[in-house]
Each structure stands twice: as C-alpha cells, then as structure tokens.
C-alpha cells in the first residue's frame, strides 16, 4: 500500500524575526505513514513532537522540505484556503486541553460543528452525530452541557466532533496529558477502537510509555530529529537511549534490563506483564542464568 502521509526532509524553524537566531524545532524529518496505521509518537517536552502534528494539520508550514498528504504536496510556500480545507477534512486533530476545543454549550451541537462547516444537509449531520456519539459511548450525554462532564468525557466529545467529519486520520496531540488514569484509558480505548474497527489512521502523540506500547509502531523524537522508529518491543528494549532522551521504558522492560546489568542473561524485547513474567520464570526455574 502506498503511503497516506509522507514527509521529506521536513524542517521547521521558530522565530528568527528581529535578527534573532531562529530555533530549530524539527530538522530533516522523513517518514512515511500508511493508511490504517496506529502510530505513537514519543518525545520529551519540547522535543518537537507537537510541532510535527501542527505541520501535518497545516497549522504551520515547513521552513524547508515537504509533506505529501493523500497525493497533495505541501511546500514552504503554503496552500490556498480551499486546498487547506480539503486536507483538514481528511485529517482531524484532538488537542491537549479538553476545555479549549469545545465550541457549543450542548454536546450534540458541538459534535455538529464540523459537519456544519462541511456544509452537509441537516439529516446527514443528525445521522453523523448519533453515529459518532455511539462510537465514543457518549450518546446518553447528547443534551448535556460540556462543562459538567469529566475530562475524559470532554475528550471523547471532542473525538466525536472529529469523527463526525469522517476523516481518514486523527492526530491526538497529547490528548491524554491532562487526564486522570480513568480518562486516559477511556481515550486510548477509543483510539484503539477507531483503528481496529473503523480502519482509521491514528497518530498518538504522548509521553506515557504504557499508552505508546498499545500502538503498532512507535516513533521517538528527540531534539527535532527521529531517534527511533519501529515496533514497540524493538523501541522499548533499547532502555539506554530512551532514558538518555528523558523518557523511560515500561517497568517490566526496565526490570529485565536492571537484572541483565546484574549479570543475568535475559532476552530483550519483552514488554507486557505476562511476557516479562514468562521470561523471569525461565530464569528462576533455572532454565536460564
């Protein structure tokens, strides 16, 4: 399958006006994302991961390099308003602060906002609202006021607002960072469902390892560059570079790593609880060591 999003030598500088030296947020990023992939983008605060998201949804335009989205090439020259509109209906964004992305005072009217902007007929909008709220499990809250909902519920409403536009891809820009564990689980469960059942391309920007472990592919960004790109078990078994760029490995992986430092010979690439327990059982029962 050909790629849905492809970036070629993507570079972005901030600032640089008034003779100041610009700050390079992204440098020479080339990657390719296929339709239907579930990708986690990991990086510490200020690593450039959110900048990448802003470039993909055309909130920013590259300083150098280009992005190809579904056949349309975005260059530093920018695009016309109509071209931007066409790309944005294919790529939806869910942001970090659940309070700052809901527009309406009633849940279903907020979900309607995107479809209304697309100029869809009323019956179609109605059908899409109901389907979208069903998908995120918020149908019973259709007539509620957003400010009375929990953080996780607000984010699910925001997701419904995006899926009602029927994009091919959704980018979650640290959408779980401000939530409690329950809210985070609600949102990541929804992401997984959208990917597995609706075949939607998911890009999840986060710094929570256990969330990233649920994706099919993990991209680690540090200082504006791609540091690692691979399946979660490949990426997470490289504990040292992860720690060096301000991240951490899941606890199980860290435990195996610590034990191997103490002289136990253990395989790498174990990340889930049961995988780690299996490996340690072999060690304890004397099959290894």
């Amino acid at each position, binding site marked *: 399958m050909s790629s849905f999003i492809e970036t070629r030598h993507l570079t972005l500088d901030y600032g640089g006006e008034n003779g100041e030296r610009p700050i390079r947020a992204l440098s020479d990023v080339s990657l390719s994302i296929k339709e239907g992939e579930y990708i986690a983008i990991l990086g510490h605060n200020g690593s450039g991961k959110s900048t990448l998201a802003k470039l993909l949804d055309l*909130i920013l335009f590259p300083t150098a390099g280009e992005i190809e989205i579904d056949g349309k090439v975005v260059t530093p020259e920018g695009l016309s308003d109509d071209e931007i509109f066409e790309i*944005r209906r294919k790529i939806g964004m869910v942001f970090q602060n659940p309070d700052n992305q809901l527009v309406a*005072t009633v849940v279903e*009217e907020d979900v*309607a*906002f995107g479809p*209304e*902007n*697309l*100029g869809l007929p009323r019956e179609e909008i109605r059908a899409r609202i109901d389907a979208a709220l069903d998908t995120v499990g918020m149908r019973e809250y259709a007539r509620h006021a957003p400010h009375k909902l929990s953080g996780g519920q607000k984010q699910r409403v925001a997701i419904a607002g995006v899926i009602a536009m029927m994009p091919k891809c959704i980018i979650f820009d640290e959408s779980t960072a401000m939530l409690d564990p329950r809210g985070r689980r609600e949102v990541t469960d929804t992401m997984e469902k959208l990917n597995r059942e609706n075949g939607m391309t998911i890009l999840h920007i986060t710094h929570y390892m256990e969330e990233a472990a649920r994706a099919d592919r993990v991209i680690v960004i540090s200082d504006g560059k791609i540091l690692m790109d691979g399946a979660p078990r490949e990426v997470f078994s490289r504990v040292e570079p992860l720690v060096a760029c301000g991240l951490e490995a899941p606890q199980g992986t860290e435990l195996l790593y610590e034990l191997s430092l103490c002289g136990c010979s253990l395989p790498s690439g174990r990340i889930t609880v049961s995988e780690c327990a299996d490996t340690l059982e072999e060690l304890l029962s004397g099959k290894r060591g």
Partner: protein
Amino acid sequence: MISDITLGQYFPGTSPIHRLDPRFKIILTILFMVALFSARNIFVYAALALFTVLLVLASRISLRVVLRGIRPLLFILIFTLILHVLMSTRTDGRLLLDWKWLTVYDMDFYRAGVMVLRIVLLVVGTSVLLSYTTTPISLTDAIESLLKPLAAIRVPVHEFAMMMTIALRFIPTMLEETEKIMNAQKARGADLSSGNPFKRIKALIPVLIPLIVSAFQRALDLATAMECRCYRGSKGRTKLVKLKSTPADAVALLLFAAVLAGVYLGNAYIPIGIRVG
C-alpha cells in the same frame, strides 16, 4: 461552588411558554415592553399586572422563584420611589409637604408607585418569557435568525452569534478558573477580602492577570481547534438546529397583539382612574 450559578437562570420545563419558538418569544417580549411603556392609566396597569401573573402561571415557574428574582432590584426600586417623590416638579394633587425647595404632592406617590410597578412587571415579564424559559443557546439561534436580513448589508450576523455562543460556553469555565486562581493566591497568603475598596481592587491584580493570560491562551487554542474542524465563517455552512414555529406561536402573537391593542383602547376610553405618565 461558583460554577453552579446557572447563567441566565434557565429552568428546564415543558410549559406552553417553554415550547414557544424563541424567535417569537423575542417578538412577544418586545410587544410586551411596548404595551408596558404605552400604558397611561392605572386600570390598564392593573390589567397588565394581571396578564403578567397569568404569564407566570403559564410558565409553571413557582411564584417564589420569580419574586426572588426581584430581590436584587429592591435597592433600585426604593431609590426610584424616593427620587420620584422628592424630585418631581409637577404640582398637581394635594400638597403634603412644603419645606424650602422641597414640595411633595400626593400625586407624586401615585406616579412613583406606577414607575416601580412598571419596573417589576418589566423584569418579571421578560424573565418569564425569555431567561427562565429559553436556553441561552436557542436565544442566540433566534437572534441570528431574526437578524439574518441584515447580513445582506454586510452586518456580520453569523460572527456575532458565534461570539455569543462561545461566550456562553466559556462563562462557566472562566468562573471555575477564577475560583481556582483566587484559591491559589490565597494559599500564598493573599488577602482578598479586607481593607478599603482601593486596597481590595489592588489585591485583585494577582487574580486578574492570570485570568486574562489564560483567557488569551484559551482563545488561541479554540481558534486553532475551530480551524482544524474546517471552520471558515458562515461560508458554505449549514446548521443542525432549525427553528420551527407552530400554530401555538401564531396564537401567542395574536394574544399579545390583542393585549397591546387593549392597552391603547384602555388609554383612550377609560375615563375614570388616575392618568399617569
């Protein structure tokens, strides 16, 4: 908690007044206000007062709630009363008091009383017709729909309505935020509740600055989020909610028109009673 203060004090319900088309309700309110300010006769006022009570009954909102709504106005009402009695330059009726530049006639009391009644009826009538029985959002939709003809002469009607919607959406959020920031500064020993008025205003700076900074941040975030959801003003935009009027709206309109006509007839043909205004 501060965020539980309901804005516009909407009381959910399904009374005949709740069910009226909000566009009609705005028109009805205007008719009601015109009637109120046209009345020139104490009997006409009495009839309007009766009509207002009927409105309250039809809205099925308890009289206690309605009276509580007047309470904050008490000061203004008393002030109006005193002002009208003392400051009136009319010299009709019986002279009750004549002291230096101050003259008080008994008619002054009638006029002041009518003025107070007018304010009370105005507040009760508009709250029952609009704020108590209409959600802020449908009110916004109604205003947008009523003003739509103005869009032809480039009045930004849609943008105005969108601004109102967003303001309504964010008022509870900002109230919550205010409470949070006040608590944070109190935790750092800020004294927000004592001292003279000047000191108190100065003490609010540590609350206001973070509040304004965060409002700007929210505005930026929201603008980005709206653009990402393909918002580009009213261009090519459809709407989910379509306001629908029913025969009941027409009946209500006729009723209010009849009341207004009654007021004019009453002004002209009721010879007895005291003319005011």
